């Protein structure tokens, strides 16, 4: 590893070479190129490409007491027949949908707002990004113990009470589980998205707004016809990564809802993978669920990419 920073002896190769030397040179260049690649490629091979294959293989096997046998679709049948299977998917989509509304739109609005301010901008930016700096467990225990306490000793209920609004049992209420997790998750994570949007907004040429205004476009129209088209690529990219990230909902149910929540109201697909793999000692079933998730997200990504590239034309 030290080779990269080690001083390299430079030599001048001024003379033209014969053809064989050129071919050797070419091979040489290729070797060098691959030498630079090998470290990263090795890691990809070991921790990405190989596990992909292994995951598929595992999903058709069953291992017990050191004996591994092929079992066809058994793992898949068992997983799909698990009554929590559909609940988990429903919950995951529910979370993803809510997170899109809150975690995707809200940072954009915040970024637009911040971009307009001439004062206190640095302060606000720091504030928004601050929660990103907390370890996720820290932030979630804060929500779990202090904000979402189902009695009126909890912060949220105390505030609701003070405002004469109905209180909620939060994580204990099947209907509030998902919104509560989305709120915590958005608070923790939105800083990153806000910064990216801010950067994108700053790259919009000012004369576009100028021209739009001269055309008589109002505030909303300017956002619609200038801001959004100008940041469309970033928006599309972030929407995509956001969806893929939220589909992997795990630590929120684990900490906030002690796992499954009330009657599976918090069970996510990712948590189900963990439950099968490590609570029920069924790694093969967990691998099968992983493959199912891969297929679903792969299909989603393909459709999404197709749609977003078609719009480009």
């Amino acid at each position: 590893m030290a080779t990269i920073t080690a001083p390299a002896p430079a030599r001048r190769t001024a003379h033209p070479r014969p053809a064989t030397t050129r071919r050797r040179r070419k091979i040489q260049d290729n070797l060098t190129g691959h030498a630079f690649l090998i470290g990263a490629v090795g890691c990809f091979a070991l921790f990405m490409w190989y596990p992909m294959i292994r995951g598929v293989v595992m999903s058709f096997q069953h291992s017990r007491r050191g004996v591994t046998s092929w079992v066809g679709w058994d793992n898949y049948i068992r997983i799909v027949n698990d009554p929590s299977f559909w609940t988990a998917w429903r919950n995951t989509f529910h979370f993803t949908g809510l997170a899109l509304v809150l975690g995707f739109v809200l940072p954009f609005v915040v970024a637009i707002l911040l971009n307009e301010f001439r004062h206190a901008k640095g302060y606000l930016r720091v504030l928004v990004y601050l929660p990103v700096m907390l370890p996720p467990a820290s932030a979630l225990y804060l929500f779990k113990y202090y904000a979402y306490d189902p009695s009126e000793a909890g912060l949220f209920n105390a505030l609701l009470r003070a405002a004469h609004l109905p209180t909620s049992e939060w994580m204990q209420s099947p209907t509030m589980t998902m919104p509560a997790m989305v709120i915590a998750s958005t608070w923790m994570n939105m800083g990153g998205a806000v910064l990216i949007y801010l950067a994108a907004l700053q790259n919009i040429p000012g004369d576009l707004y100028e021209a739009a205004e001269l055309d008589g476009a109002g505030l909303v129209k300017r956002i619609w016809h200038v801001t959004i088209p100008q940041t469309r690529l970033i928006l599309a990219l972030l929407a995509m990564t956001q969806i893929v990230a939220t589909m992997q909902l795990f630590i929120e149910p684990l900490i906030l809802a002690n796992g499954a929540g009330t009657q599976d109201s918090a069970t996510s697909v990712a948590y189900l993978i963990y439950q099968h793999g490590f609570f029920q000692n069924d790694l093969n079933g967990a691998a099968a669920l992983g493959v199912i998730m891969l297929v679903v997200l792969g299909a989603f990504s393909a459709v999404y990419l197709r749609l977003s590239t078609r719009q480009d034309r």
Partner: protein
Amino acid sequence: MSVPQYRRVAALALVTGLGLSLAACSTKSEDDGGTDAAGKVTITVDCQPVAAQKELLQNWNADVTEFQKQNPDIAIKSVSVGQQCNNPPDFTARLAGGTTTDVFYGYMTDLQQVLDSGQALDITRYVTKDTVPTWDSVDPALKVVFTDGGKLYGVPVKNYSMGLVYNKALFQRAGLDVENPPKTWPEVREAAKRIAALGDGVAGYSEYSAGNTGGWHFTSLLYSQGGTVLSEDGKKATFNSPEGRQVLQNLKDMRYGDDSMGSRQLLQWGDLLTNAAAGKVGMFIGAPDTTQAIVSQFKGRFSDWAVAPLPGQTGLAKGTLGGGEGYFFKKDLTPEQVRAGLKWIAYQKLTPGKGQFDYVRAKPQNYPVGLPQPLLFANGSEAQKQEFDLRKANANVPVENFALFENNQLPIKGEPRNAQAIYAVLDSAMSGVLTDPNAQVDALLKTAEEKVGQLLAAGS
């Protein structure tokens, strides 16, 4: 060095760089057989108490020092894995990853899982009077739990059965008779109502519903009604029964009929004990040693707590859940390591007057002595008598707090096969009835029955 040569070297360096860094960590998995040049046998043992359990940790460390002094050829390396020595997913991960300690802690219900993982060592021929002097006194029923196919895989170190744990101070404040705790679930309900009426966020009765502990307590409540979780052959779920419905109905009535269970639900192990230590819980079911945890870990007051036998629907419980803990041995240990591990367990866990039975040491500590636990030795055996006398002589807790429990021994039933996976399913029945005022008891049980059916069919 010419340029091409230099490049080749650079390429090689990059290739080997990764390889070397991988090789560097392989030293971690080196296996020296646990015996060093001086002939010293080293073993790692888990479930060392955590720092929060100050006295327990001190005692453990003192035991290690003393044991090593007596056995200069053995070195014990203690590992503390967390507040709960066996948190199911972590335990599974340790088994799958082969990262358990040489001698590792597990529940009685873990034997099948440990065997499935291929990590267990058959220790039948090592367990003798030489390695474990009190072995003949150990309750044979406990040995059976750690035996599979005639082979012994673990050594029991704790055995408990559940009762009704109640807070005497709250009982008094609510005007209830401390000497005469509830004997039936309807009486529990009445008492809970009166305790909850004290207000101030006090729950009359508290119950688990998350992290597998809900299913665990459901099982105990079910046994108290005379029900069973699985059929005899272990192939069918049998908890969707009148008894099972009664369990959930009782809870539902208390939670939503009387509002006597507090508003905070989805509790798991430590949550309930934290509330109890804060004086916010009137009654819950548990083994007598939960009162130890309340005192040593959660800063509660020991004198507040008493234990009664588990209630049933019409009289005392028809049965109570018994469980326990033991130590397994990792498969690749040398015979010397196994013997060293057994000696250590024998010293720390199975010798009256030593280790966990060192009541003289525990008496002045903030650690209760006198609990009818951990029933390890067979009735009438030599070790049992010794242990009993020591306990009585050094008791620092009012023994009458546990007299009711001790004088009413109920039939003890073990946990179902595949317990942890089933508990995970039953959690949702418990959380349903405790958090949803409109929960349908029948529907909850039916769903759980289906799920357990699939679990059993999968045979995992």
